[in-house]
């Protein structure tokens, strides 16, 4: 019977609230836009028809409550004062208030239990069924670990990015410096040449030649003189003998190529290289004395 009555009161209320609905409209749309769909909406002002039977409530409370002599140990309840009103929509503050309530409550409860001389923390060797299964806890652990790993990786990436940026900057600075140095050197040489010209010290013969060389932009052309350590027929300029001495810095490929050139010959005379001389005929390094596999085979 009570249920039927309840339904009727509900429908009644609905009819009543239809008037409020129109004025609620704006407010609702606002609050819905910024909050989740789950969040509930409150009426702006309390509806006047709401039942509040204070006496009935108190009577019921008297009815159901436990007798006075029921000790605290039966209830295990702690009341905690909330210091200030908590804003519901501020998740962090709200959760923090719950946490502090729980922590404070546990402290007080433990003090009470301690004064009663009752055990309250489980000993380390007390194993029993837990609320969450081991499989689930494993999942939780894995997630925590992966989260941590992700954070670390992100930090590393960030670091690398910054280092790269820095390296780039340094490189730019270096190239600038180098260019500057080069310029300065050229300048100084020019200056020196001017001075010399003015003083008229140098011989007039090679002066014109030098001028040409500088004004053509080629600094310090190779002289035609014989270089030490290079045979007159060697077109590779002595590189062939150095065997992979080419370190122009263009990388591995260049180095490799240089080495091969030195080994198999590139540039220079070919004809004289491939002939035997007295030295090569005396050289017996390529032969073994022959006490290896052949002898053994014969014994057998």
């Amino acid at each position: 019977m009570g249920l039927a009555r309840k339904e009727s009161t509900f429908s009644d209320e609905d009819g009543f609230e239809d008037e409020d609905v129109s004025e609620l409209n704006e407010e609702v749309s606002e609050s819905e836009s910024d909050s989740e769909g789950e969040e509930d909406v409150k009426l702006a002002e309390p509806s006047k028809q709401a039942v509040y039977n204070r006496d009935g409530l108190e009577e019921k409370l008297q009815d159901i409550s436990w007798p006075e002599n029921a000790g605290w140990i039966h209830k295990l309840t702690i009341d905690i004062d909330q210091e200030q009103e908590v804003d519901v929509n501020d998740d962090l503050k709200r959760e923090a208030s719950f946490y502090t309530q729980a922590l404070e409550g546990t402290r007080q409860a433990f003090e009470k239990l301690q004064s009663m001389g009752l055990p309250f923390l489980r000993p380390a060797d007390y194993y029993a069924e837990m609320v969450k299964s081991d499989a689930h806890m494993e999942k939780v652990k894995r997630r925590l670990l992966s989260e941590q790993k992700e954070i670390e990786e992100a930090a590393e990436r960030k670091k690398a990015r910054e280092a790269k940026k820095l390296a780039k900057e340094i490189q730019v600075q270096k190239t600038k410096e180098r260019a500057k140095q080069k310029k300065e050197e050229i300048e100084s040489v020019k200056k020196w040449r001017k001075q010399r010209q003015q003083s008229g010290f140098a011989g007039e013969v090679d002066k014109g030649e030098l001028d040409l060389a500088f004004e053509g932009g080629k600094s310090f052309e190779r002289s035609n003189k014989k270089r030490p350590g290079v045979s007159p027929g060697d077109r590779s300029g002595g590189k062939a003998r150095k065997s992979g001495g080419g370190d122009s810095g263009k990388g591995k490929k260049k180095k490799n190529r240089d080495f091969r050139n030195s080994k198999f010959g590139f540039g220079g005379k070919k004809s004289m290289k491939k002939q035997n001389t007295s030295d090569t005929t005396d050289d017996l390094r390529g032969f073994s004395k022959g006490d290896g596999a052949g002898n053994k085979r014969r014994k057998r």
Partner: protein
Amino acid sequence: MGKKRKHTEIIEPTKKDDSVTEERPKRTLLGWKDKIEIKETEAPGVFRNKEKVLVTCSRRINFRYRHLMLNVVSLLPHCKKDNKVEAKSSKGATLNELVELKSCSSCLFFECRKHKDLYLWMAKSPNGPSVKFLVNAVHTMEELKLTGNHLKASRPLLTFSSNFGKDAHWKLIKEMIIQIFGTPKEHRKSKPYHDHVFVFSIVDDHIWFRNYQITVPHNESDKVARGGLDKMTLVEVGPRFCLNPIKIFGGSFGGPTLYENPFYVSPNQIRALEKKNKAGKYAKKVKAKTRRKMHELSNPLEPDEFADMWKE
């Protein structure tokens, strides 16, 4: 097995003695007329909590809400889980019957409507009261963000925010929560340690529920000094939910309404409003378009005098 039997044999005679010496309380077919009196008469001076909670849900419940119910079941060792109940208008009677059949003294009924809205009925069985809540902001224990864990069936500490003492209906709800969510002392499934806390806090006229595990640094777990208690930390175990009281009834699952939340708007109404707003959007657009057209028709542009200047 043999041990157990002995135990019961020892206990029974004392009980019988009590009942013989005291007057036997009146029992009706539906249970005891007045429970508390009986408790007092059974063992004078000694209070024994024999709370049993029936936990069920309605048919066609959402998986999420069902999981929430199962979590609650795992938190309450003194509860009995039962089959789903059809949420018809006569569900109150069937539930009352069911509670009696299971010899429980209170009931938690999770009612899911439209696969979206969860209502929680909290009822004391034979003669009331019962409270109907709307449940919001549900997080189950399965969520991986809730990293705590605690013993199954250890007795929880219940902490309440002080504003439960503010009003009569809050006081009543608090008493019901204490009786339903607190595990009875010396319950046969309960364990003698306390390693989790329930938080019931009223914020914004809603009751927020949290469950935390209590962790104390390891080496001090045997003997806890004051320093150890200071280092105590809490880890959330879950579940989380938020209860919005709608009504309090005098009887169990029915009876006279004692309290009605004056601020309550049902989720159906909220959705209807939302829909209305959405529908209004299009209508407004069409209206604006026609109005514009009418405006253009009523004040036509003046003929441009330089219109055919470059035509020649």
